[in-house]
């Protein structure tokens, strides 16, 4: 599999070049944490898309659609519509009132130490789960594609970890942003090319394509079956399927607006207007991508077939195997390299948001009581954190091994984000009465509820699960809100209420917002 190796190396060389260039240009903390707030709307929009479309999107959704048809497409729909929550409710107030992290908005009116400590914990939890999932995926992918070259799962995971540490430690947010942009363009072109090849296979006739999708044949327990893949219900089956689908929809639609690595992207632009336009750029790209998952997923189901995919690496290999069937080994290598680039970029984005949160929220504001630190010291702490986070993720990914369920870890990240982060962000922006006790209680309840419910769900407890749904959202998101509301009502904080006017004015006018530098 030499072509794949060469393409990997080429992408790595390009991204390391970007990192070197960014390192030369980074002068201060604003550069390191927020790319100097100089990104334009289209640049940040593409970067948001790059940060968002992870291994779960490219490999995962294609696989679920290839195996379970229409139900898999529900992920695509939810992951796009979720951006309306970001666009209408979160992006602009966040840009106007924060500096580097999600917690800036929460700490604005509340006591910074407890709130930032909890927010940093939740950010690190979401990012780590998300990251381990990506690294397990990368390791499995690279090991499978490069098996002839002697590269094992362990080597691949360690390689990915070292690369991601390099991007973040040396290049900061500027390098990370440009890596996202390169990756997003690669991913979009690869997906477009693959979709065109699928259509070409059906003589560019949508009629022929969908007719084939209407009768997909595969073997189930050794018996051949033919199913209409456009019909719902192949994944979400009674008795709990309908509830599980609604639970998943809730987690997707509200989780996105609570993902730390997406939220920090809005600090890299000069003002709220640019943040808004960048969301629309992202929606254009992300939407087009998810519509094309129709061709990737159904294409894999009809052209490659479930049986072949199951015998050659399983669901996650659907898109690469489709590329091999349609375009031969070279195109297979190209698509595999794109998947690898996708993972690498997302992992870098996660690392920068986790280490920024640790340095800014925990080190400066919790350990040092918010006493203004030397910005260079904050950057140094973030670099050390990036190194530690990378090492921890490498360790856990190796422990879990290549067979760990990647989709499960990503779902956990979304559920935690929707249950812990989303309620407190919304309430701190829109509820005058909201206070510190409420924020700590909301973050805590949401975090614990989401994690406990997943631990007792069918994904983990294979026999006799205590909680019948795979996704905890339908229970844990209301619990997160409930914790925040009850916590708030149990105490009074006149200072927090008094500062609401200031927050309201700043969020809506942009007065006093952090400016672009340089």
């Amino acid at each position: 599999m030499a072509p794949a190796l060469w393409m990997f190396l080429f992408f790595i060389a390009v991204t390391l070049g970007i990192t070197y260039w960014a390192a030369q240009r980074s002068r201060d903390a604003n550069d390191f944490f927020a790319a100097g707030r100089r990104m334009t709307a289209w640049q940040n929009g593409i970067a948001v898309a790059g940060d968002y479309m992870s291994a779960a999107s490219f490999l995962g959704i294609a696989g679920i659609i290839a195996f379970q048809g229409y139900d898999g497409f529900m992920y695509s729909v939810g992951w796009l519509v979720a951006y309306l929550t970001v666009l209408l409710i979160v992006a602009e107030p966040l840009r106007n009132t924060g500096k580097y992290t999600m917690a800036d908005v929460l700490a604005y009116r509340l006591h910074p130490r407890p709130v930032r400590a909890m927010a940093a914990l939740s950010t690190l939890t979401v990012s780590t789960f998300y990251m381990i999932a990506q690294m397990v995926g990368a390791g499995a992918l690279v090991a499978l594609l490069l098996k002839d070259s002697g590269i094992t799962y362990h080597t691949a995971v360690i390689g990915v970890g070292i690369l991601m540490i390099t991007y973040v430690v040396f290049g900061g947010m500027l390098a990370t942003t440009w890596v996202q942009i390169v990756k997003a363009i690669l991913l979009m072109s690869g997906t477009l090319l693959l979709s065109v090849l699928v259509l070409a296979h059906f003589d560019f006739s949508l009629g022929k394509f969908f007719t084939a999708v209407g009768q997909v044949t595969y073997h189930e327990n050794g018996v051949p079956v033919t199913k209409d893949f456009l019909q719902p219900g192949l994944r979400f089956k009674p008795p709990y399927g309908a509830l599980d689908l609604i639970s998943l929809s809730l987690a997707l639609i509200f989780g996105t607006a609570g993902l730390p690595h997406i939220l920090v992207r809005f600090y890299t632009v000069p003002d709220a207007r640019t943040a808004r336009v960048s969301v629309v750029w992202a929606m254009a790209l992300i939407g087009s991508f998810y519509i094309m998952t129709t061709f990737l997923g159904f294409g894999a189901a009809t052209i490659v077939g479930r049986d072949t995919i199951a015998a050659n690496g399983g669901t996650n290999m659907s898109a690469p195997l489709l590329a091999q069937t349609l375009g031969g080994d070279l195109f297979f290598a190209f698509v595999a390299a794109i998947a690898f680039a996708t993972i690498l970029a997302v992992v870098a984005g996660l690392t920068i948001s986790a280490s920024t949160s640790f340095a800014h929220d925990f080190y400066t504001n919790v350990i040092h009581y918010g006493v203004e630190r030397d910005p260079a010291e904050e950057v140094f702490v973030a670099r050390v954190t990036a190194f530690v986070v990378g090492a921890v993720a490498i360790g856990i990914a190796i422990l879990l091994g290549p067979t760990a369920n990647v989709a499960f870890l990503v779902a956990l990240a979304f559920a935690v984000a929707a249950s812990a982060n989303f309620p407190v962000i919304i309430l701190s922006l829109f509820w005058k009465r909201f206070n510190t006790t409420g924020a700590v209680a909301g973050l805590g309840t949401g975090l614990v509820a989401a994690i406990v419910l997943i631990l007792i769900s069918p994904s983990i407890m294979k026999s006799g699960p205590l909680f019948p749904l795979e996704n905890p959202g339908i229970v844990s998101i209301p619990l997160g809100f409930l914790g925040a509301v009850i916590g708030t009502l149990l105490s009074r904080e006149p200072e927090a209420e008094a500062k609401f006017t200031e927050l309201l004015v700043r969020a809506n006018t942009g007065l006093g917002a952090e400016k672009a530098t340089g």
Partner: protein
Amino acid sequence: MVKQAPWERIAAMPAFHALLVAKQRFIIPATLFFLVYYFALPLLVGYAPRMMETKVFGVINVAYVFALSQFLMAWILAAFYIRAAKRFDVMAAGVVAELDRQPQGE
């Protein structure tokens, strides 16, 4: 920051109040609309599967058409918001301009 902006005074301005009202008039109905439109999909797929399996043309069924329409809905709503937000930007700039005209302090 150059100067501490007098938040209370801005909050009391009729122009600021008008900005908040204008934003709420767009954002609240738009949010309710997209939440209802979006959650109708999993609810109908989950609880009215027979209806969703009705064929529209060829093998294409209601479920798939409704799912695709979500993409259009999201894009169109985003476009409407961008247009409305231009108006909000002008109003917000008006608030800031009015603040600069007023004498500082009491």
